[in-house]
Each structure stands twice: as C-alpha cells, then as structure tokens.
C-alpha cells in the first residue's frame, strides 16, 4: 500500500501539465469551438508528447502504462479544457485491447496512436444516441447491450447539433448494428471503465482549475475596500470546494488504482468517482460564476466554458443518481 504517485507517475503528471499549459487553454479551446476539435493539439499529444499509446502495451508499440497514468493525463486535459478526443480514444483503446481482436487492433490502433485516426464514443440508450465529437471523428465506438461496436463514421448518419458545451460538441448518431467486437462483455466494460475514469479525472482537473482561478481572482479583486477573498463567506465557500476537490482526487486515484490492480472495490470506485467528481465540478464551476460576480456570466470570461463542460460531464456515461444507485446495489442488495 502506497497511496501516492510514484516517481514515474509524478513525472508524467508534470509533463502533461506542462504540455497542456503551453498548448491548450481557454484561447485555444475557443478557437477550436468552430470546428469542434483542436487537431493540432491532438496530433501533438499523440506524436510529440507520444501519449497516443499511453495505455497500449509495449509490444504493440505503446508506453505500456495503466489507468493511474491515464487519469493523471486526463486531469490535465480537463484543467485546460483541451478540445481533443481523448475520451473516445481512451475508450476505444480499452475496447480494442479487451477484445483481443488482432485484426481490429492492427487495423486501427497504430493509426489511432499516431493521431491519424480519431474516435468518438457514446452509449446507446435514451431517445437517440448523442455522441460527443461524432461529427468530428473518423471512427465511432458505440456501446450497448449488444456489445461494443467500432464502425466507420461514414457508415452512420451523424447529425451535428448546437451543443451547450461547444468545447466537445454532441451529434446525434443513427447506425445499424453490425458485428460487435469479440470478447463478450469485456470490450464494453473496459471501454466504459476507461471512459468513466477519464471523465472523473477530467472533472477533477476542471474543478481544480476553476477553483484556482477563483482563488486568484479573490485575492486581487477588491470590493467594499477589501479583497473579496478576505470575506469569510467567500472563504468558506472556497474552503468547502477545496474539501470536495480533495475527496474527488482520492476518488480518481482509488478508481484508477483499483482498475490497475483488479481490486475488489473496482466497480464501487468507478461509480463513486464518476458521481462525486461530476458533482464537485458542477459545484465549483457554478461557484466560479457566482464568486466572479457580473463578469462571471459574460461570454468573454472562461467561467461558462467550465460550467458547461461540467454539465456535459455530469450527463455522460450515467448521471449522478444512476451511479449512486449502482453503489446502492453493491452495498445493499445481497444479490449484487
């Protein structure tokens, strides 16, 4: 038991932080909002940074790292609102590896790792299939009861939509079900786990950044002749959010570690991480607006980008009540 990033993990965290700080951020993301993806950033992520194969085994040309490293990187992407298809990429990588389908792996993984082929992933269910980045990506990974389907985007009808979160636009997808990836439920489960972890980590990063920016504002901005951050109500609000972010970080690390070790708490950890981190991000981003006052709800300020991203994350791959109900099943229903 050693519940802290080891040296290599710490280095990856710092590398990712530096990369995204330099290459992503509000300005870059706003510029990418018209097209939906920051393609230069994604290419640089995959190739220059070499993280396109982060979780791919070394014998397949990847870095052979695990979910802890994925989480650490996704956190930094979330912090900078990076407009990249990391979510679909991570999910499709996990699905392909879990399928053990050499033909599919050889067909897609190298191009994915090189950043030449991008994947959008979504879950069937509800009235239609809303998939983030579906209108921007080459492949679609569709999860459902029939398994995980990896198809060419051109083989589906994709209707681009005006989306609340313009930094990761949704599209409505209509696709007929072909053959799923082999491996039974495994590809679906692996993809969902990687996706849930990515979203939780992204939420953690976004929440941390929203908090940090609000704290910085609170130190500078004066009202009633004092820095607003010297007002106790302001402080306590930020303190509460800090407590929640600390818990969110514990949740992400727990889930990532549990996945890598096949720990018995794996499922519990994923449900906990998704619901807790998404809720935390919603609260912090909401407070970011509130505590900035009027400027916080203008288009020019980044607060709404965080706020909308937080909402989108909350709704993706199961909302809070869904994941808490799953936790309840594990803890309360003896049959679970």
């Amino acid at each position: 038991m050693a519940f802290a990033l080891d040296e290599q993990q710490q280095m990856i965290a710092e590398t990712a932080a530096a990369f995204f700080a330099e290459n992503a951020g509000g300005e870059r993301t706003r510029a990418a909002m018209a097209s939906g993806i920051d393609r230069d950033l994604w290419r640089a992520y995959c190739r220059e940074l070499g993280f396109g194969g982060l979780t791919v085994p070394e014998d397949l040309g990847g870095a052979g790292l695990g979910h802890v490293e994925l989480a650490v990187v996704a956190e930094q992407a979330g912090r900078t609102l990076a407009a990249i298809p990391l979510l679909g990429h991570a999910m499709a990588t996990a699905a392909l590896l879990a399928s053990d389908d050499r033909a599919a792996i050889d067909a897609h993984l190298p191009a994915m790792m090189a950043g030449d082929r991008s994947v959008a992933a979504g879950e069937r269910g509800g009235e239609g299939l809303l998939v983030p980045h579906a209108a921007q990506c080459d492949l679609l990974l569709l999860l459902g009861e029939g398994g995980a389907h990896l198809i060419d985007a051109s083989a589906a009808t994709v209707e681009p939509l005006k989306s609340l979160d313009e930094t990761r636009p949704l599209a409505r997808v209509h696709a007929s079900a072909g053959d799923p990836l082999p491996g039974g439920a495994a590809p679906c489960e692996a993809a969902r786990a990687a996706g849930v972890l990515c979203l939780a980590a992204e939420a953690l990063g976004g929440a941390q950044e929203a908090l940090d920016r609000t704290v910085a504002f609170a130190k500078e901005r004066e009202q009633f002749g004092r820095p607003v951050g010297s007002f106790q109500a302001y402080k306590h609000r930020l303190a509460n959010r800090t407590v929640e972010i600390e818990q969110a970080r514990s949740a992400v690390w727990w889930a990532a570690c549990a996945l890598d070790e096949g720990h018995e708490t794996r499922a519990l950890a994923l449900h906990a991480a998704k619901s807790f981190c998404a809720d935390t991000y919603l609260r912090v981003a909401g407070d970011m607006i509130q505590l900035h006052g009027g400027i916080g709800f203008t288009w020019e300020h980044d607060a709404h980008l965080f706020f909308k991203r937080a909402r989108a994350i909350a709704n993706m791959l199961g909302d809070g009540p869904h994941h808490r109900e799953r936790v309840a099943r594990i803890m309360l229903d003896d049959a679970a």
Partner: protein
Amino acid sequence: MKLGFSDMEEAFRRECASWLDEQMAGEFADIRGIANLVDKPERRKAWERRLAEHRYSCIGWPIAWGGRDATLNEQVIFAEEYARAGAPNRLNHMGVELLGPTLLALGSSEQKARFLPAIAEGTAIWCQGYSEPGAGSDLAAIRTRARRDGDEWVIEGQKIWTSLAQFADMIFVLARTEDGTRGREGLSFLLVDLDQPGIEIRPIRQINGEAEFNEVFFDGARCPVENMVGAEGEGWTVSTTLLSFERGISTLGQQMQFRNELDAVIAAAKHNGKAADPVFRQRLAEAEIGLRLMRYGALRMLAGGKGGALAGAALTYKIQWASWRRALGELAMDVLGQEGEVAPADAEGWPLLANLYLYSRADTIYGGTNQIQRNLIAERGLGLPREPRGNA
C-alpha cells in the same frame, strides 16, 4: 387573513383576462410568451402603448397620472392575469414600477408633469444606471461624476449591467456630484436622455450567447439641472427609495413566468419518465413547494409593506426567488439529461429550459448578489454587527 378574492375583485379579474386574452390571441399574438428583454423591441413598444390606451399601463398609479388608483388586490389580480395570458415581459418595467413611484414620492411637480405622462402612455422607455465596473454590488463605490456647467450637469463615467439600454429612451443615473466625497455622500440622482452624442452603449454578450445587458459610457453627456430628483447630494436616499419599490406587485407576474418554467420541467419529466422516479419526484415536489411559498411570501410582503418598513419577507425575497430559480435550472437539466444540452444546429438562442439553466446563474448575482443579500438580512434584519470595511 384571507386567501380568496371578493366578487367585485373576481369581476375585475374576468375583465382583465378577457381583454388580455383578446390582445394576445389577436394583434399581439406575435409577442406572446416572450420572457426575455431583448426580442422584438419595436413590437413591444407598440404593446406598451396599447396597454396605455386601455389604461392598463400603470394601474396602481393615481388616476390623475394615467393610472386607475387600483387597490392592492386589483394590482395582484392584474399581474397574475397579465402573466397567465402570456403577455410579454414589460419593456417599461423600470419606468412603471421603479421610476414612476419614485417621482410620485420625491419628484417635483415639474418633474412629475414632464416625465410621468410619457411613462403612462408607453412612449418613454427607461433603464437604470447604477452598477459600475469595480462597484458591482457596492453601490457606494460609484465613480461616475457629474459637474455643473451652467444650467446643465455634464456626466463622465461608465455604468455596466444596464439591461434595456439598447432600446430605452431615458436612463436614471446615480453620479457623484461633489468632488472628494466617497461612499454614500455626495451622490445625486439624475434623469438623462440616452439619445445624445455623449453616450455610447455597448452590449455585453452573456453565458447564453445573448446580449441583454450593456455597458453605458458617459463622455460629456448632459442633462438640464432640473432633471435632478431630490436635492444635490441626496442621491443615495433617492436610490434607496427607488429600490424599495423593486419587491412590489411585479414579483407576482415574475412568479407566473416561474410557473411556466416549472410546468415545462414537469412536462419534460412526464415525457421522459423521470416523473415516475421517486428521487426526481422529491425534487419536483420541493420546486413546487418553493414556488408556492414564494407566492404566499409575496402576498405577505405586499400586505405588510404598507408601513414602508422593510419587513422580514421583503428582505428575504430576492434570495428566495433567485436561489429557487437557479435550483430549478439545475433540476431542469438533470431531468432532461443530455437531450437538454442540444438544439438543432441552426437554432437561434436556446430552448426555454437550457436558457433558464444558463440565465438563472445571473439571478443570484444581479440586483445584489446572494452574498450581499445575506449581509443585509443579517445586519438590517437580525441586527448583527456590520462587517468591518477596508481602508479604501
């Protein structure tokens, strides 16, 4: 204590309802249901004039000034029927509900004669110049200045978060008229024509992509000296009087809009099955309870507000509705799920509930943040010691 209305009052209700329904089904059907402050301003100005023609523009004002001297209950009834009929948000809310009553209370005979008729007739639309950059919720930090130049005041400075400025004819401005003063001292209350070279208006784009608020720049803008309400240096008192009218009858109309929003959430929940989910049922019930309590709170506020004192209910009302509506926005999005996040690619603006979600984030900020409201409740309502101010 009584909830019901008298027969005469119910007759008045039918009269209003029938006229409003006729208008909204007929000539003004195109502006029915507009809840924001930006759509179709010209048509809405026509609507203001139509209201005036039928003496419905300011029924609570004295008959001599174009009103009906309506009782409190009649005003309640009209506000409810107005909203129920789907009549659009009043473009001249500031003139009718805020400036008018202020002039009636504190204006000179000349000011009344000059400004009230145009409000009553719907020919002058007003907006409010209070907030400034760096003085969001801190009105006392106002830096806009007015200096005397012969028979005129000349104004330099900047206001912000001014809704309606892009359509309005006139603005009331709180400005510093005495050099070297700070805080509440040395402020005066001026009535200024917006249509002049010294004024520039720039819209502020908001979180929902629309621009309801504006920045208003004063660069040598002028108004005659007789446009000062109250004495020189008494602006703080005048503005306090004006703000005290903010929690008036119009809150009931606003609540009918909230009702429509809650009904839309309920309809969505019924449509997608969340209305059968016990967890969502609890939250929907809370929203319903909150809205009802807002109604009865407003009725208490109106009944008890005669003495002019800030009753408990009035102090707490802003925070109550703003928090309620923000929570409703969150509930709406939770009910809708991902479907709530999208619109057709070519849609202009957002559907009702997505817009509610976004816009309600401003409710807890403008007109005094929730934080400021809590300070007021604690200090004025409960008599707790004031927060120490800094040295600025």
